[in-house]
């Protein structure tokens, strides 16, 4: 009664493919209902998603537009007020509007990069674990190399090479971060492919493709989700860092680029806390939301940690 249930026994309860896909999704829901942290995370994401979608409707000003005082001067460095909830930048742009638009960049980068990382990582893990042999060896050596590359410096160099665009940031993250997901999925696949029902499918003449995607993939899905929820946070953080270092997309307002703008415009010396505090908080919240959700997954997958 006291021993933990290993991941494998949790997963083997859903051997049927369609049921398994549904179960993996249902699991997400049950995590949210059971775990206070995970629920908080999901709510944060939901709020930012609404903000991102509704930004053009809710934002009082276009984010890049200069605002003017009644006397015709640029309304620069305005403090927080009713007309400018968070004040204005040194060029008279409305900070609150920028913050709302920043949610778009953050979620776009976060979600696409997480998808990229998880899809690539899961595919690599499936192929590596399922085929084994030299395919596995080659892929795992490649993962070793990816682990040996300093992530942020490489991201900077690659973005500088590919050109400043948030899609390049996404691409770079996908290329560099698949390694963690890939490794974990692979080790899970290694045990799954020895299962009786996989063996049965093979004897019945199922193709490799079918075995991998219908019989094995659904069982590693919760793990993929776990790494996906973490990857969203990392991606947002990385985009912010790259933007802050000045390698971001100049045409996109992101929380990172807002902070870079503030930093370069002496906002620190001017003590313009209304400018550089809010974007940091929003970044922190979205990243934490990812952590919280992944914690929920961990407790589902490794219930041992749950017991107090």
């Amino acid at each position, binding site marked *: *009664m*006291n021993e933990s249930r290993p991941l494998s026994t949790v997963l083997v309860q859903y051997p049927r493919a369609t049921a398994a896909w549904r179960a993996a999704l249902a699991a997400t829901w049950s995590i949210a209902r059971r775990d206070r942290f995970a629920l908080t995370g999901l709510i944060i994401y939901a709020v930012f998603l609404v903000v991102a979608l509704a930004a053009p409707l809710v934002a009082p000003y276009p984010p890049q537009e200069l605002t003017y005082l009644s006397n015709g001067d640029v309304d620069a460095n305005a403090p927080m007020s009713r007309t400018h909830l968070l004040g204005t930048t040194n060029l008279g742009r409305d900070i609150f509007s920028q913050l709302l638009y920043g949610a778009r960049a953050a979620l776009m980068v976060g979600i696409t990069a997480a998808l990229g990382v998880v899809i690539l990582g899961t595919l690599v893990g499936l192929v590596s674990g399922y085929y084994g042999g030299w395919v596995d060896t080659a892929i795992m050596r490649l993962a070793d190399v990816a682990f040996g590359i300093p992530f942020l410096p490489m991201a900077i160099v690659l973005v500088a090479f590919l050109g400043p665009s948030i899609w390049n940031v996404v691409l770079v993250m996908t290329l560099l971060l698949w390694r963690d997901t890939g490794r974990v999925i692979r080790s899970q696949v290694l045990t799954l492919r020895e299962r009786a029902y996989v063996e049965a499918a093979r004897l019945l003449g199922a193709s490799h493709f079918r075995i991998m995607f219908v019989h094995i993939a659904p069982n590693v899905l919760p793990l993929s989700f776990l790494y996906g929820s973490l990857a969203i946070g990392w991606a947002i953080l990385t985009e912010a860092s790259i933007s802050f270092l000045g390698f971001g997309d100049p045409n996109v307002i992101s929380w990172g680029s807002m902070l870079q703008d503030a930093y370069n415009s002496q906002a620190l010396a001017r003590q313009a806390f209304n400018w550089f505090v809010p974007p940091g908080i929003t970044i922190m919240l979205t990243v934490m939301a990812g952590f919280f959700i992944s914690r929920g997954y961990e407790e589902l997958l490794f*219930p041992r940690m749950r*017991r*107090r």
Partner: protein
Amino acid sequence: MPLLDVEGLSVEYRTTQGSVQAVRGVSLSVEAGGSLGLVGESGCGKSTLARALIRVLPRNARITGGAVRLEGTDLLSLTEEEMNQYRWRKIAVVPQAAMDSLDPVHRVGNQMVETLRLRGGLTAVAARARAERLFQLVGLESRRLEHYPHEFSGGMKQRAVIAMALALDPSLLIADEPVTALDVIVQRQVLATLRQLRAELTLSLILITHDISVVAHLCQDVAVMYAGRVVERGTVRRVFAAPQHPYTMGLRNAFPSLRLHQMRLVPIEGYPPDLVAPPRGCAFAPRCPFVIAKCWDEDPPLVATESGHMAACHRANEAAVLSAGAPEAFARLERLAEEGPIRATGSGGLR
């Protein structure tokens, strides 16, 4: 006054499936210098009972009732700090997991010295000397004190843990399956050591085991546990010569007996009940070959029987007759179980 007097002790585990009633109102006592064997299948609550006596339970376990009186003091009413004074000075335990009970990153001797200094108040030099004597006492060379646990064999670790348990001259030693993890030869050595120690030191012993021959070898008294309860208790001689409870009879048949030269061992068919929802009647009823209607409805209390010990069975007064037929009755159940799944564990199967 007995050294240890346990009355109505109950322990439960909180699990995701509900609370498991691992120990359900156990009463027993040990006289000063006495020795009690606690026998039963794994999962019957005997290890939980042992850990409850020294109040070191798993995090999800809780003592829900009863009293544990040691020389008249109820240990359950003490604060944690007060209880710490009783641990090891009065009660010491050789845990079931003795193999893994030594800290792998410290030398065995240092762990011994730590206990002697922190709990026994000895100086470093005195503790060292005592550690060496204790090692000699259990048959280990004193140079072994310098070794790490991973350099010890299984039997040596067991001895080291026994030495550790004797460090502060406890009045009561609780040994939980002290020989189970060992091979037969080492088992015999460790048992001999325990027997010798009992003779040399005036030590009371509670010996927990699923192996009744070990009890017969080392103990004066025995308590048989089933599903969190004591179902029979008395002197070893009486209980094994004239068992009053069908479970005890079954246990006797299931083990290579010491005195009765039985040709064939008969297992007890079936499994203990689920203790999340303990049965209303006798917990042994589903596996009992002598079950009667009353057994399903009424849980028999532990009462004194004619033969001078205690048992919890509605048919204890017929024990002599039943006992004679027990091997055959259990064997019949075994055959039935082999033939097919006709035996339900509920009330339907055997009436």
